[in-house]
């Protein structure tokens, strides 16, 4: 079978035996040709097989057709890297090297990703002890050049990461980002924990993306378990996802305002973010929606009085938001800082496989709700927000548009929730030897969970891809040419997850 003939789609599972197993040379050709032909790598990872071989698995997505494909190959110690011909897999290959101890030979930038010993390596092999702190930085030499190191503990109250700048005066020539400081071993936990414990880990992959990752986790689990899903539950899930999107975009607009010293914007958007979080708290008991997304549906219902109250609060939020957004986007000094700063060229955006608002701010209409819709989004569509200029202003504008559209969507959907149970009876047993893929348009972009069940109906492999896995590279590419003092603004305009990347 060819990689595109499995009938694989978002929230579907296929028998593991149906996934093509190709010789590595043919696997390479399949993936490289597919990407050249309009597919893109949604996930690419390694899985130990019994004995001494590692199985490489590639999940490919065709956005226009809404289809997914899968193919695989067995390798021993290494394989010829695909990156020189297909840059979109660059970080996936580095991750495979680190997780599985398998070398992508000829990879142009083979460096650690999260700096931890292999945790998905075949039983036959032993990893050489490695220094977690060792990292080969790219350096520029010159009498007028200097190097600035920032982090892991850096600036304000923020997750840890390391940024190494090569600068000429104020101008950044090169930025290298080293992450892994938030690595907690999430994938191994998802593979080994019992069901509820694993769900709580999934909610904690990225604390500001509880709904997004819980949705993807439950989506993959439900596909593997052939669970029925309740329409009411799916509708509430969709609403929660949009509420999470709104809360985070509001926070980002406030943070962007703060970074250009526009205090009224920072104050007002910070407060509005809290309003959105408080709505999630009313609904789920937790400001980030923990406890809400559960296998089969949702853990809390939205009774009619609560839905009416939520719509009223969202209406008030919308009115305040319009005023605040006008104030921010009409301000000359704010736009003077936003416009032309941190431009991500479209070519780089495509090559890096960028997703989410950062990609849409380069004009790419890439959105899982549109391309691979699931649940509520198969019935109700939110227009995709794009902006053309790829700079901080464009990324701010996309967020503004998404808040507006999600607010409209929420107010409408909360008034039209389907009747019925909030949660279908959850199947506990997984169908053995299957592969499932669940994709979600999280507020930062595409989240993918790939799950493979084993022959006893347990979890054999759980692969998590956070949108930040693609987009951190975009920040490194967008910054050169900008003043180093614009780094916080550029960083904030992408607002990537450290924890989501590090797992």
């Amino acid at each position, binding site marked *: 079978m060819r990689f595109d003939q499995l009938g694989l789609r978002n929230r579907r599972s296929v028998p593991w035996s149906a996934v093509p197993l190709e010789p590595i040379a043919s696997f390479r050709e399949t993936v490289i040709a597919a990407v050249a032909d309009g597919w893109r790598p949604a996930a690419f990872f390694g899985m130990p097989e019994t004995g001494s071989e590692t199985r490489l698995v590639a999940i490919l997505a065709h956005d226009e057709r809404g289809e997914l494909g899968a193919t695989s190959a067995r390798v021993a110690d290494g394989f010829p890297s695909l990156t020189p011909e297909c840059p979109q897999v660059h970080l996936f290959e580095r991750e495979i090297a680190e997780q599985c101890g398998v070398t992508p030979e000829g990879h142009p930038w083979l460096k650690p990703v*999260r*700096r*931890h010993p292999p945790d998905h390596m075949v039983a036959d092999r032993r990893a050489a002890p490695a220094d*977690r*702190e060792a990292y080969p930085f790219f350096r520029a030499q010159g009498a007028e050049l200097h190097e600035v190191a920032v982090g*892991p*503990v850096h*600036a*304000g*109250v*923020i*997750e*840890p990461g390391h940024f190494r700048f090569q600068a000429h005066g104020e101008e950044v020539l090169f930025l290298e980002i080293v992450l*892994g*400081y*938030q*690595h*907690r*071993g*999430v994938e*191994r*936990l998802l593979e080994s924990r*019992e069901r*509820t*414990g694993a769900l*709580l*880990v999934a*909610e*904690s*992959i990225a*604390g*500001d993306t*509880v709904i997004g990752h819980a949705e993807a986790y439950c989506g993959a689990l439900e596909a593997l378990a052939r669970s029925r899903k309740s329409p009411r539950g799916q509708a509430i899930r969709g609403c929660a996802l949009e509420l999470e999107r709104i809360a985070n975009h509001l926070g980002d607009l406030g943070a962007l305002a703060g970074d250009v010293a526009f205090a*009224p914007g920072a*104050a*007002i958007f*910070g*407060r509005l*973010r*809290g309003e959105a*979080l*408080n709505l999630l*708290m*009313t*609904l*789920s*008991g*937790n*400001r*980030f929606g*923990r*406890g809400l997304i559960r296998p089969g549906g949702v*853990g*809390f219902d939205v009774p009619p009085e609560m839905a009416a109250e939520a719509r009223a609060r969202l209406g008030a939020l919308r009115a305040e938001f319009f*005023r*605040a957004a006008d*104030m921010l986007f009409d301000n000359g000094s704010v736009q003077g800082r936003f416009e032309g700063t941190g431009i991500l060229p479209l070519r780089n955006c495509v090559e890096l496989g960028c997703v989410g608002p950062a990609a849409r701010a380069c004009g790419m209409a890439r959105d899982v709700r549109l391309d691979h819709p699931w649940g509520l989004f198969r019935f109700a569509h939110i227009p995709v927000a794009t902006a053309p200029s790829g700079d901080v202003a464009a990324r701010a504008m996309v967020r503004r548009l998404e808040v507006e559209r999600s607010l409209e969507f929420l107010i409408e959907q909360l008034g039209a929730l389907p009747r019925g149970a909030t949660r279908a009876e959850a199947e506990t047993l997984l169908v053995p030897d299957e592969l499932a893929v669940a994709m979600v348009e999280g507020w930062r972009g595409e989240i993918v969970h790939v799950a493979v069940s084993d022959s006893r109906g347990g979890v054999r492999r759980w692969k998590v891809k956070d949108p930040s896995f693609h987009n951190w590279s975009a920040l490194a590419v967008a910054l050169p040419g900008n003043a180093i003092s614009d780094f916080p603004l550029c960083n904030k305009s992408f607002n990537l*997850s*450290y*924890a989501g990347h590090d797992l």
Partner: protein
Amino acid sequence: MLKMILANLLRGPATTAFPRRPAEFPERFRGRPELDASRCENGLARCGAMSPSRLVVQSSKGANLDLGGCLFSPEEASACPQGAIRYTRDPRMAATRREDLITPGGEPAAVRALQGATRRLFGRSLRLRSVVAGSCGGCEAELVALGNVVFDLQRFGVQFVASPRHADGVVITGAVNANMELALRKSIDAVPDPRLVIAVGACAISGGPFAGSPEVGKGVPADLPVDLWVPGCPPHPITLLDGLLRLLGRLENGSRDRA
């Protein structure tokens, strides 16, 4: 801009009335958990095994609740078939000593306020450095929210600073993973004496949902003295504020300091 100013004037200040008045929480809010021993049948031995976290711990006298092991999920309450565990809407959860988080019924612990020299130094002006060591980012989001116009940490003289060398104490979040332990220790060392250490969130107290992963420990290493423990996953900003204010002696048991 004028429309915005007018709207603000009409709406009034956004700052929460806490601590002058108790904060209000919606019905489903999962605050401090409680254990009703009268509902416990002899299933105490099974209790810990059924819960997805380390909320229930066994002692010689029976089951105790460990607020530091609580992940505040609905399942930790529903794990008890007798309904002996439930969440109150009380945000108050901080403690000065780790052992004070472990109680038979989940009773709120006492926070012993700073005394003497540290009280004089920090009581009305406290500078904190946040160090994140293997977290999900949720606790930090709530620490950031503390600085917004609703919670306004600054009105109590408390602020976050850019360097540990400018700080009076560190706030630790995260389960303390292998990749951050060295940076955490160095950051704490860089805070001049006298200094405070505050552990925020289930991860920092007990490893949180990640406890058991080979990449993390059980939160703040045992050899580091901690002055305040704030449970939560993540702790609500009011829980954080309540704990900090009690530590600074600005919120005594039974009396309220004017902000």
